[in-house]
C-alpha cells in the first residue's frame, strides 16, 4: 500500500502537544485530588448509618458508574448553560471529571474501609478515641493503603478518559491531536505520537503515585509488605 509516514509535521508542533499534555495532567490532577476527597466522604456516607445519606451516596455512585463519561460531560456542559450558567470549558471538564472519578473512588474506598476489621475499631474505641479520630487514624489511612493499587489504576484510567473533554473545547492532548491531524491530515503520525505520549503520561502517573505511596505509607516503605 505504501503509506509514507512523515512525523516531522507532527513533531514540529511539539509545543502544542506539550501544552495539551500539560492540560491533560492538570485536569487529571484536579479531578484526582477533588475526587479523592469526594471518595473519602462518599465512602463514609455510604457506610455511615444514616439511611438517607446512604441512599443518596448509593444513587450517586450507581448513576455515574452506569453511564458514559461523555454523556455526563454533555449533560453538565449543555445542561448548565441551558440553565443560564456559563462556565469555561476547563471548569466544566474539571467538574465533570471530578464527579465521575469521585463515584469510582467512593466505591473503591468503601471497599477499603470495609476491610478494616471490627477488632481494630473496637480497640480504638476502647482507647477512648472519638468517632472522627477513629475514622482518621484507624479506618481512612489503613483503608486507603489497602486499596491504593486500585485507586492508582482508577486515576490512570481517568487520565486516559479525560480525552473526551476535547468535545467541549477543552484543549487537552486529544484535542491538540485532532487539531493537528485535521490541519495536516497526518492522522497516523498524529495518533502514533499521541499514543506514545499517553503511555508515557500513564507511566509518569504510576511512578508519581508510587512515590506518593512511599511518602504516605511509611510502613509499606520500610517493610514492603501489603497491609
Amino acid at each position, binding site marked *: 500500500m505504501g503509506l509514507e509516514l512523515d512525523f516531522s509535521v507532527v513533531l514540529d508542533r511539539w509545543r502544542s502537544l506539550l501544552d495539551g499534555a500539560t492540560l491533560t495532567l492538570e485536569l487529571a490532577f484536579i479531578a484526582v485530588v477533588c475526587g479523592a476527597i469526594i471518595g473519602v466522604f462518599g465512602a463514609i456516607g455510604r457506610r455511615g448509618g444514616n439511611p438517607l445519606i446512604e441512599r443518596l451516596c448509593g444513587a450517586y455512585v450507581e448513576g455515574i458508574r452506569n453511564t458514559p463519561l461523555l454523556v455526563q460531560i454533555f449533560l453538565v456542559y449543555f445542561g448548565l448553560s441551558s440553565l443560564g450558567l456559563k462556565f469555561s470549558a476547563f471548569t466544566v471538564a474539571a467538574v465533570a471529571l471530578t464527579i465521575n472519578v469521585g463515584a469510582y473512588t467512593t466505591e473503591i474506598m468503601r471497599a477499603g474501609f470495609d476491610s478494616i476489621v471490627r*477488632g481494630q475499631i473496637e*480497640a480504638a474505641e*476502647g482507647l*477512648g478515641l472519638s468517632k472522627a479520630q477513629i475514622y482518621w487514624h484507624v479506618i481512612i489511612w*489503613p483503608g486507603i493503603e489497602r486499596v491504593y493499587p486500585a485507586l492508582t489504576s482508577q486515576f490512570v484510567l481517568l487520565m486516559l478518559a479525560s480525552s473526551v473533554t476535547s468535545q467541549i473545547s477543552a484543549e487537552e492532548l486529544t484535542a491538540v491531536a485532532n487539531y493537528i491531524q485535521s490541519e495536516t491530515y497526518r492522522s497516523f503520525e498524529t495518533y502514533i505520537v499521541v499514543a506514545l505520549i499517553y503511555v508515557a503520561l500513564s507511566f509518569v502517573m504510576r511512578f508519581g503515585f508510587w512515590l506518593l505511596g512511599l511518602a504516605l505509607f511509611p*510502613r509499606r516503605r*520500610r*517493610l514492603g509488605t501489603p497491609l
Partner: protein
Amino acid sequence: MNISAIQSAPATNGIAPVVAMRQVHKSFGPLKVLDGVSFEVARGEVTVLIGRSGSGKSTALRCIDRFESIDGGEIEVCGRRVDDAGLDLRALRLDVGIVFQSYNLFPHLTIEENITLAPHAVKGVPKAEARALAAKVLAQVGLEEKLHAYPEQLSGGQQQRAAIARSLAMQPKVMLFDEVTSALDPELTGEVLKVIEALAADGMTMVMVTHEMGFARGIADQVVFMHKGKVHEAGPADILSLPSTPELAQFVGTGL
C-alpha cells in the same frame, strides 16, 4: 443451681467496688447470653472469669466497657452507671483499659505510634511527653527495644505485650483482659502472664477471662465461674481446688 449464683456476688470490703455488675441481662436476638449476672470487683483486686466456651464471659467483659448495651440490670464502673443512656462513653474508656485476644494493634503504625496515639489524641498529652510515656510502658512489659518496629515484625507474645502497653499508657483505673494468651504458644504465654503478674503486684484492678487454670489459681483474688449465662459459683481462688458445684468440678477437671 441458681442458688449459688445469687449468693455469689460481694467480694469487696466496705469500700465502693471499682466494677459492679448487678443482675445483668443480655440477649442476642433469641439467645440469652447473660441471665442475671452479678459480681463486684474491689480496688486493686484481680478477678478471673472462667467457664466454658459460649458461657458469656467475653460478653460480660464487653458489657463492662459498654461494647455491648445490656437489656436489664445495672453496671457500675468507677462510680459511673454504664447502663445509663446518657453515659459519657469516652470518660468511661479513660477509666477502663481493655485488651483482646487478637491484639488489635494498628498495623500501619509503629509500636510507639500505637501507644502514643490515644494519649495524644484523647488526652492532649504533648507528643514528646507521650513518647516518653511510651518508652516507660514498653519497659514495663519488657519491649523497650521494639519502639520503632511495626506490629507484624513482632512475635505473637510481643504483640500482645505491646497491646497491653498501649492500654497502660492511658493509665486506666481498671484493666480488662479477654483471653489474652489463647492465641499464643506456651512459651509466649509465659511472657504475657509475667507482665500481668507484675501489674497485679503493682495493685492494678483487673478483670480477666482466661483458660489458664494454673495462672488463675496463682493470681486471682476472686474467681467467677460462669455457666450458661449465669454466675454459677464465685469466691476466692480456693474454689478451683474445692469446687462446690459439680459443674465447676467438671470444668476444672477438663480444664487441667
